[in-house]
């Protein structure tokens, strides 16, 4: 299986190049046979890449340590679960994984459009196969072939990084990668539009779902990554402005900008060059993210390899995509002229434009901070890393502006809003916002940013609530429906709008949770069994933790030490909590498994910072039980995950096929049946 997988990778390369050439030549020469050949090549490359992936997974499952990649990321005792995840555990496998996902989406696209949008498809195939070809070149020629053999068979592998041995490993990387790769489709359609000259908003409408799908996966991938960091890295936070975290946030920011600015083009025929640039930028940033994660260029908790060949190939690819796309855009500039002008600065268009500028501002600030070590190294010879303080200082104000815009945008009408009405519409939400800030101030909170965040969040929530309330009310009045029915119909009639509002609510909840960080409490204490540590919550109550004792056990892949604490809240017992240390024998690495007790108000977060005498615990020595614990109270953290759920619901509502599409499908199915019946009647 593995040998066949490697072989499949080698055949996939010429076939993807064939497909690229067939797509471009078939498209420009209007040769249907070449186009068909190109389209078939997409499906073939998918099959070949699936075979290659299966080859890697089967090598992991059968412990074939003669392969460098398997030896580096697995060992005999590794859980089967994580052996399957070996496909994306390291650089080599994740490049294959990336390619197989692109091939999967490409294949779906070709199938979906077998009778539709035919003018686009030859070029779409050309672009997609070009991208796949690039990844195959890297895999086969940049010393990252996952099937490379060591020349000898080690007795055991080096094991998977213990911090990756967590169930989020099965979820976070694949979902994030789905997000990165799904954006390839809108990019391919944008390039196809530039090549075939159909530059109205058609390509945008065609790829709207893909963009949203990509955004959906990206967002969830990032949230899952935060959850992973929170549970596994054991320092009490969920975001560290690590280069790889930043790399995933960059395309998210530009994709978010794109999701909003496409509406301006759809509605008003404006911003055509801007949208082309955004789709290009987002695509490049997804490649940049893959590149940064897997090139080892900037130090990060995620990087595994130091290989400069791959860095140069990646940079060359990004540069050529950039140059080709810019030339195409310049060439088509006369056709990309705006059909309309912004009529008023008090309009949805203007608000979206501002949102775009702010999002791009954030993206550039983060990009700058991320590559700063490289830049400083080039000029001063010393890599200076920019830490979280820089990112927080720059991004908190930007984030607040964005947060406010999520509320302001929806209230302003397209083209031109009526100023008088605006004042009326904003009065109540503004009042709510100010009241909430004032109330929290009165309760004793003094952090300016946190007060602003809560105030603005309340403002946005009030706006969305009023929007839903009034919308349902208006519909109930006009259609004579009950309020609840009217509400359901309202959302159903314009899923994008209302789904979008719900996504905004999710974002607001997350921002409030971020602001909770301002009220963190942390206590460190050395404890003997029976001793206690207390922490006071900013919400007024107090937790008392009693250290009961520590025990050790030997598991398949690691040794563990588990400390048990009992917890009381204001004197009322709320149950036990554990926190542990694990020593992964193969990796010779110690990690912490934190204990988390979640409530809507705050998380009680327990870290086993140190064990005084590990050997003594193993020997069950009653005098060797002294530990060091770190207890944290992280306010509102649960609302990040809850916000994520709300956002997912909103996204799904927006993604759901509109009644129009369903009706069209039903009609065409009915027509099909009718024609079939007619044909049957005629033949009988």
């Amino acid at each position, binding site marked *: 299986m593995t040998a066949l997988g490697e072989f499949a990778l080698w055949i996939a390369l010429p076939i993807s190049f064939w497909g690229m050439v067939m797509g471009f030549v078939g498209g420009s020469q209007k040769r249907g046979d070449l186009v068909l050949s190109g389209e078939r090549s997409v499906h073939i490359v998918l099959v070949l890449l699936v075979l290659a992936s299966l080859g890697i997974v089967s090598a992991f499952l059968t412990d074939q340590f003669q392969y460098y990649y398997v030896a580096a990321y697995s060992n005999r005792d590794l859980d089967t679960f994580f052996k399957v995840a070996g496909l994306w555990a390291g650089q080599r496998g994740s490049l294959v994984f990336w390619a197989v996902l692109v091939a999967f989406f490409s294949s779906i696209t070709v199938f979906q459009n077998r009778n539709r949008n035919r*003018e686009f498809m030859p070029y779409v195939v050309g672009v997609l196969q070009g991208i796949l070809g690039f990844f195959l070149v890297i895999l086969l020629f940049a010393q990252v072939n996952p099937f490379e053999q060591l020349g000898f068979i080690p007795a055991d592998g080096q094991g998977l990084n213990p911090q990756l041995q967590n169930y989020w490993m099965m979820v976070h990387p694949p979902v994030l990668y789905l997000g990165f790769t799904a954006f390839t489709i809108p990019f391919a359609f944008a390039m196809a539009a530039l090549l075939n000259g159909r530059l109205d908003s058609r390509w945008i409408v065609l790829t709207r779902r893909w963009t949203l799908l990509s955004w959906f996966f990206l967002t969830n991938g990032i949230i899952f990554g935060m959850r992973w960091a929170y549970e596994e890295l054991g320092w009490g936070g969920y975001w560290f402005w690590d280069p790889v975290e930043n790399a995933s946030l960059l395309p998210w920011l530009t994709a978010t900008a794109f999701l909003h600015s496409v509406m301006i083009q759809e509605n008003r025929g404006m911003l055509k060059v801007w949208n082309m640039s955004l789709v290009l930028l987002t695509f490049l940033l997804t490649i940049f993210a893959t590149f940064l994660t897997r090139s080892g260029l900037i130090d990060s908790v995620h990087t595994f390899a130091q290989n400069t060949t791959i860095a140069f190939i990646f940079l060359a690819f990004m540069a050529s995509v950039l140059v080709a796309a810019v030339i195409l855009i310049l060439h088509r500039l006369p056709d990309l002229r705006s059909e309309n002008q912004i009529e008023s600065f008090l309009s949805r268009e203007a608000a979206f434009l501002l949102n775009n500028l702010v999002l791009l501002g954030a993206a550039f600030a983060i990009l700058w901070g991320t590559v700063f070590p490289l830049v400083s190294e080039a000029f001063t010879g010393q890599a200076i890393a920019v830490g979280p303080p820089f990112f927080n200082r720059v991004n908190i104000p930007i984030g607040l502006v964005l947060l406010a815009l999520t509320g302001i945008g929806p209230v302003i009408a397209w083209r031109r809003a009526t100023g008088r009405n605006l004042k009326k519409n904003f009065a109540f939400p503004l009042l709510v916002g100010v009241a909430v800030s004032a109330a929290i101030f009165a309760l004793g909170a003094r952090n300016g940013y946190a007060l602003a965040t809560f105030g603005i969040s309340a403002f946005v929530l009030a706006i969305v609530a009023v929007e839903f309330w009034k919308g349902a009310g208006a519909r109930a009045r006009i259609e004579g429906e009950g309020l609840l029915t009217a509400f359901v119909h309202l959302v159903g009639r314009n899923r994008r709008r209302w789904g979008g509002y719900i996504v905004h609510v999710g974002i607001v909840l997350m921002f409030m949770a971020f602001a909770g960080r301002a009220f963190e409490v942390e206590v460190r204490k050395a404890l003997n069994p029976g001793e206690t540590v207390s922490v006071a919550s900013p919400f007024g109550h107090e937790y008392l933790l009693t250290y009961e004792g520590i025990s050790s056990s030997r598991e398949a892949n690691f040794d563990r030490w588990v400390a048990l604490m009992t917890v009381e809240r204001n004197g009322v017992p709320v149950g036990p909590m554990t926190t542990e240390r694990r020593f992964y024998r193969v990796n010779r690495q110690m990690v912490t498994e934190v204990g988390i007790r979640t409530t809507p108000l705050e998380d009680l977060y327990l870290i086993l910072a140190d064990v005084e005498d590990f050997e003594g615990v193993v020997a069950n020595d009653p005098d060797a039980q002294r530990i060091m614990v770190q207890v944290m109270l992280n306010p509102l953290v649960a609302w990040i995950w809850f916000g994520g759920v709300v956002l997912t619901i909103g996204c799904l509502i927006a993604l759901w096929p509109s009644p129009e599409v369903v009706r069209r499908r039903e009609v065409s199915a009915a027509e099909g049946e009718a024609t079939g019946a007619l044909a049957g009647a005629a033949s009988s």
Partner: protein
Amino acid sequence: MVTLGALLLVGFSVFLILHPVISGKEAPLESAGEDPSDAQFRKRVSLLQLRDAEYEYAMGKLGEEDYQALRKEISAEALAAIRAELAETRESVGPAYESESADLEQEIARVRARLKGGTFCSECGHPNDAGSRFCSQCGSPLQSPRTSSAP
């Protein structure tokens, strides 16, 4: 075994991608009637804008004046798009469009003329010529002229 698998893989892949080129089997280069035309596309956008404007007016985001002005502008755009769509249909159907619509007009005129003095069948609703005693469609006896059903 692996060699056999590899050979099959290569053979199959090469066959599939070369087959269209050799046999001349083609993928369609244009989508027949599936995609909206430019005018249809513009019409859709205008109608959606109209829907948005109505919604924003109902929600109190647009004042009366602005709403009326916007509605006029968007309606004009929608109308232009609908005219363009009509012209497109005419063009694509060609002279058949004219004769077909002429046929339709005649048919309508015939039915109208028949109905002037005629009567609807109370059973099947078929319009019958004036003076008919039985329905020419279903054979039911026709009662009073000029009415389709009892008052």
